[in-house]
């Protein structure tokens, strides 16, 4: 049992009003499955906090974490 729960890749939603059906279907179903540094949702159970982790899916190394929308300017 882990105190952290994976919440999938963080992805920008296309504008539902302007995107095509195909673009929306791609957003819903397709994923960038290639290895690399990804922004991911993670949930910390004990504190009940969602955060974004930037994790390399090849090495499992996490390089940054922050609350969604509160990413500091790089």
């Amino acid at each position, binding site marked *: 049992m882990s105190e952290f729960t994976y919440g999938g890749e963080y992805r920008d939603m296309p504008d539902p009003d302007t995107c095509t059906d195909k673009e929306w279907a791609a957003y819903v179903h397709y994923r960038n499955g*290639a290895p690399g540094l990804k922004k991911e949702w993670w949930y910390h159970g004990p504190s009940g906090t969602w955060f974004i982790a930037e994790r390399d899916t090849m090495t499992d190394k996490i390089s940054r974490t922050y609350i969604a929308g509160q990413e500091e300017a790089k």
Partner: protein
Amino acid sequence: MPLGLLKYALSKEHPAPRFFRDCTEPKKSYDAVIIGGGGHGLAAAYYLAKDFGITNVAVLEKGYIGGGNTGRNTTIVRSNYLTPEGVNFYDASVKMYEDLSQELDLNLFYSTRGHFTLAHTDSAMRTMRWRAEVNKHVGVESRVVGPDEISQACPQLDISCSGQAPIQGALYHAPGSVARHDAVAWGYAKEADRMGVEIFQSTEVTGIDVKSGKVVGVNTSKGYIETNRVLSAVAGFTPRITEMVDIETPIVIHPLQACVSEPMKPWLDTILVSGSLHVYVSQSSRGELVMGSSLDPYEMHSTRSSLDFVEGLTSHIVDMFPFLSNVKVVRQWAGMADLTPDFAPIMGKTPVEGFYLDAGWGTWGFKATPISGKTMAETMARDIAPDLIEPFRLTRFEDYELTGEKGAASVGH
């Protein structure tokens, strides 16, 4: 002692030839290039040669043949799926497996042992019935059985699971089998090679050359190869290949782990799976318990092992078999499973002409090896996917026509 072994005792020189040639220098061009020398890729090469006479084929394997998920899975073969299209497809695979030792002239140790998917809850029992009914409908021998019948087949199983999750019944699937996984790859390699297919190990594909939407060649660590037909059969590496041709898919990679115990005298004759306890277990012909669990919970492109996995798995194993407390786990390992959102593969043509995809095998690729090879060979030879794999086309996601395997929380393996 079978007579076939006599020659080994009587001849001075080891009388067996190479299974396959040691190919090192690829030719300038091939009629087809198959990326991935696992069971699926080698089977596709074999059926291209055998069924369609297409023998000018190169199989390119980054590591060694059968070294990916072919050699890392828990070797279960079954067809007790939830949808008619799923059951039909895997049933065709089971039927091919049954004669495959003879066809490939190699003992694959294909052993039909019966397969129980244990249900510990009412809702699991309902799913078992659903699968049984669909299986029956398609002509596959599956039925719902009660605890007594499970006990009869496996008297050692604690039906109460140490009081933690009493077993209410199971889906019994008579054709459930295990096979020697490596031998499946070797057998296909051997026979494909015999017909002229060239197998290149330690050969990595670094790019796919697409001109005007058509495949024209592949770049490899051993140089450029011209071809206008490429099959990707690389399981956990699929996203890296589809990226080369700029194709989007739903596939994400999660590790799937397994472990084996030390050898003991065989006592477990059937294959047992428990969805609720996330356990599947069988005993190999070496006497080892081969045990697996659910997928790792997050995306990862590596075959590292985790302690969490083996702790979780073994705690459930002792619930089922309390007497195994002091039996030892010898080795754990992992493979990279290529997952789709609807628990079904992605097979067939793609938006790039001449680029064919055999992927999305998640935790059920081994059992589909013969039929995927056969149907992908047909797809490549005719440039049309046969009806059997039509439900698994890539475009189903855009069309919101996912397969019904997603219908029930699918029990893998």
